[in-house]
C-alpha cells in the first residue's frame, strides 16, 4: 500500500495502462472462447479485426513516441510498417522449413521485420533529423512514397536453392516447385496466417514496456528536454542528434514489428496499402488519444479501427457518419467547458472516495 502511494504519477499511469491492456485482453479471450457459447459470443467481424487492431495499436504507440515524446511530426510512418510487413513476410515464408513451429516463426519474423525497419530508420534518421518541424514532416512524407515505390518494384522468389531477388523487372527463373513471394506491384499473393490475438497482445505489452522504460530513463528525459526547449537542452550539453535518433529509431523498430504482425494476419498484401492515408490514419489515432499519452493512443486506435465496421448499418452514409463522429470527438475533447465538467466530475468522485476511506478509519 505504501509503495503504491509513494509511486510517482507517471508510474501509476503506466501500471494502469498495462492493467487496462491485460484486462481487455482477458475479457476478449473469454468472450471469444467456447466457455459462454460454442464458438464464442464475438461477432465474426470483430474476431477478424483483433489482429489488425493490435497492429494499429502498436503503430499508434510507436508514432506517439515520435510525435508525443520526441515532438517531431512524422508523416511517413506507414513506410516503416511497410518495410516490416514485407521483410517479415518474406522471412516467415523462407523460414518455413527451418522453424516448423508457427509461434517461433512469428517471433523470428517480427524480430527480422523490426531489424529491417531499424535499418531504414537509421538511414532516414541520420540526414533527416538534422531538420526540424515542417521540414521533417515533408521529408518523412517523401520517404513513405519512396518506400512504396521501391517495394512496388521488388520481386522475390523462393525455390530449393533459396531466395532470389530482382528489381524493376522480374527476370527470376525458379526451379521446379518454386514460387514467387513478392510479385512487384501485385504484392504478396498468398500469406500463411501466423499472427494471433495472443501474439498481438504480447507485442502491445512489449511496445509499452520499451516505451515506458525509455521515457523514464535518463535518455528519455533528455529526449523530452529536447522536445520542450531545444536550445536550452543543447546548452546543458545534450547531444541533439543522438537522442533524436534514439527515439526515432526505436519508433521505427516498433512500427516494423507492427507491420510484420499486421502482414502475417492478412491473406494478401500490396505495397499501396501502406500509403500516405495509412500514415495519416495512425497520426489521427495519436492526436485523438493525446500526444504523449500512451493509453489514449491504445483506446483511440482500437475505437477508430472498430468504428467504420460498427457503422455498417448506415450503409451509404457510413463514411460520412464516421467523418462527422471524428470531427465531433475532436471538437468535444478540446472543448474547455466539457473538459472542466469532466475534471470537476472526476474531482467529485475522488473526493467522495476519499471521504469514504476516511470514514472507514484508514490512517497512516
Amino acid at each position: 500500500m505504501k509503495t503504491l502511494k509513494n509511486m510517482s504519477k507517471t508510474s501509476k499511469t503506466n501500471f494502469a495502462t498495462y492493467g487496462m491492456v491485460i484486462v481487455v485482453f482477458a475479457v476478449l479471450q473469454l468472450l471469444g472462447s467456447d466457455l459462454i457459447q460454442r464458438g464464442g459470443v464475438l461477432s465474426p467481424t470483430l474476431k477478424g479485426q483483433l489482429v489488425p487492431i493490435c497492429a494499429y495499436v502498436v503503430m499508434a504507440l510507436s508514432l506517439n513516441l515520435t510525435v508525443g515524446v520526441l515532438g517531431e511530426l512524422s508523416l511517413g510512418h506507414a513506410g516503416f510498417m511497410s518495410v516490416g510487413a514485407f521483410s517479415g513476410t518474406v522471412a516467415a515464408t523462407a523460414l518455413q522449413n527451418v522453424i516448423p513451429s508457427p509461434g517461433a516463426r512469428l517471433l523470428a519474423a517480427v524480430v527480422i521485420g523490426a531489424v529491417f525497419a531499424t535499418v531504414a530508420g537509421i538511414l532516414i534518421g541520420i540526414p533527416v533529423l538534422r531538420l526540424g518541424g515542417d521540414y521533417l514532416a515533408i521529408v518523412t512524407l517523401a520517404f513513405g512514397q519512396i518506400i512504396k515505390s521501391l517495394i512496388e518494384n521488388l520481386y522475390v522468389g523462393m525455390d530449393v536453392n533459396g531466395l532470389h531477388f530482382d528489381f524493376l523487372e522480374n527476370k527470376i527463373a525458379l526451379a521446379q516447385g518454386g514460387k514467387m513471394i513478392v510479385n512487384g506491384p501485385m504484392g504478396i499473393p498468398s500469406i500463411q496466417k501466423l499472427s494471433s490475438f495472443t501474439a498481438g497482445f504480447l507485442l502491445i505489452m512489449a511496445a509499452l514496456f520499451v516505451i515506458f522504460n525509455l521515457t523514464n530513463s535518463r535518455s528519455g528525459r533528455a529526449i523530452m528536454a529536447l522536445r520542450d526547449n531545444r536550445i536550452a537542452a543543447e546548452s546543458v550539453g545534450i547531444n541533439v542528434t543522438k537522442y533524436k535518433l534514439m527515439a526515432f529509431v526505436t519508433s521505427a523498430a516498433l512500427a516494423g514489428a507492427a507491420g510484420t504482425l499486421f502482414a502475417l494476419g492478412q491473406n494478401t498484401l500490396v505495397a499501396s496499402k501502406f500509403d500516405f492515408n495509412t500514415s495519416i490514419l495512425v497520426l489521427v489515432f495519436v492526436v485523438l488519444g493525446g500526444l504523449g499519452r500512451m493509453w489514449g493512443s491504445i483506446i483511440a486506435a482500437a475505437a477508430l479501427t472498430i468504428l467504420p465496421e460498427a457503422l455498417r448499418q448506415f450503409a451509404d452514409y457510413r463514411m460520412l457518419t464516421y467523418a462527422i463522429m471524428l470531427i465531433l470527438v475532436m471538437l468535444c475533447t478540446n472543448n474547455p467547458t466539457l473538459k472542466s465538467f469532466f475534471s470537476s466530475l472526476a474531482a467529485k468522485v475522488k473526493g467522495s472516495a476519499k471521504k469514504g476511506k476516511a470514514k472507514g478509519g484508514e490512517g497512516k
Partner: protein
Amino acid sequence: MKKFLALTMAAVMSVSLLAGCGGNKDSGKLKIGGAGPLTGGAAIYGNAAKNGATIAAEEINAANPNGLQIELRYEDDTHDPEKSVNAYNTLKGWGMQVFLGSVTSAPGVATSVEANADHMFYLTPSASSTDVLGGVVNPLTGTVDVERKDTIFQMCFVDPNQGSASAQYIFDQKLGDKIAVIYKNDDVYSTGVFNSFDAKAKELGLNVVSVTTFTEDTQTDFSVQINDAKAAGADLLFLPMYYQPASLILAQSAAAGFAPKYFGIDGMDGILTLEGFDTSLAEGVMLLTPFNADSEDAATKSFVEKYQAAYGDAPNQFAADAYDCVYAIYQAATKTGVTADMSASDICDKLVAEFTSMTFNGLTGEGMTWAADGTVTKSPKGMVIKDGAYVGMD
C-alpha cells in the same frame, strides 16, 4: 476523454442494436452476400455489380413467389483487401450462405482465402485475377504462386485469356505493325492481362515497340507514356485497363496530336457512359468484351431497360456479370434442390458439383461452362465504337 469515448461507443452500439432488429430474423430465403467498392475511387464498379445483382434477385423473387427466394446483401470494401475481409466477416455474421465474391481483384484474392477456408461457395462477377482462383501458372515465371481454392469460380474471363486472346486477335486481323502498350503496374488486373499479352505477342512475333506503365498515384497525366509511343511510331495502342484511365489517355493523345488505333479489353466497356467524356474521342476504339448494352437480344434489352429505369444510366459489363452470377447460382441451386435452411457448407458441395457440369446461358454469353479450376469458357465479342455506339467487329 475516456468517458466521452465510452459514451460515444455506447451510443454507436445502441444504434447498431436498433438497426439490427430489422433484418436478423430467419427469413426462409437463400442469403446471398456480396462485397465490392461501394465508396471510393473504384465505387463505379462495385455499385454496378450491386445494381445488376439486385435486379436479378428482384426478378427471381417476383417470378417464383412459391419457389426458392433470394435475399441479397452487399457490403462495402472500399477496394481494400483488409476491409474486404471485414465485409466478408460481417456477411458471415448475417448468415450468408452463398458469396457473390468481391467485385475487384485485390480484395478478391483476400476474400477467396477466407471463403475457401469456410467452405463457402464463391462466384465472383469480375475479380479476374488468377490469384483469386489459385492453382494457375504465372505466365512470367512458370510457377504456381497460390494454391487452388476449390470453392472459387469466376463469371468473367480470367486475365491471361484476355491478354492472349487480344494478341491473337490483333495478329489475325493484322491491326497494327508497331504496337505500343500502356498498362497499370500496381493493378492485378492490368498487369495480369499485360503479362499474358506479352508472352503471346512474343510467340506470334508481334512488333511491340513501346511498353510504359502508370500507377494509382500517376493516373492523371499520361504525357510521358503517350510521347514514348508516339516517338516509337506506334500505329496501334493496346490499353489493358479500366475505362477511367483509358478515357484520359484518349483525350490526352488527341490533344498531343497522336492518333493510332486503340485496342482495349473488357474493362474498357463503360467508356461511352462515363460522365463528361466526349464520346467522339472513342471513335474507332476496338475492344473485346462479353457484354454489349446495345444488343438487340430480348434478355439484354429487358435488363438494360430495367437498369436504366432504376439507376438512370446504361449498365456496363460489371452489372451484366453480377446479374448472370445470381442467375447461375439460382439455376444450380434449384436444380440440386438447395433450400434456404441448408448450411453454407452443404450448399457449397452441391453447387461446386453442379457448376463443373452445367451449361448456363446469360447476358454475357451463350452456353457457358465452368472447368474444375474455376475458369469460365465463353467467347469474347470484338466490338468497335462507331458513332458513339458499340458495333460488332466481324
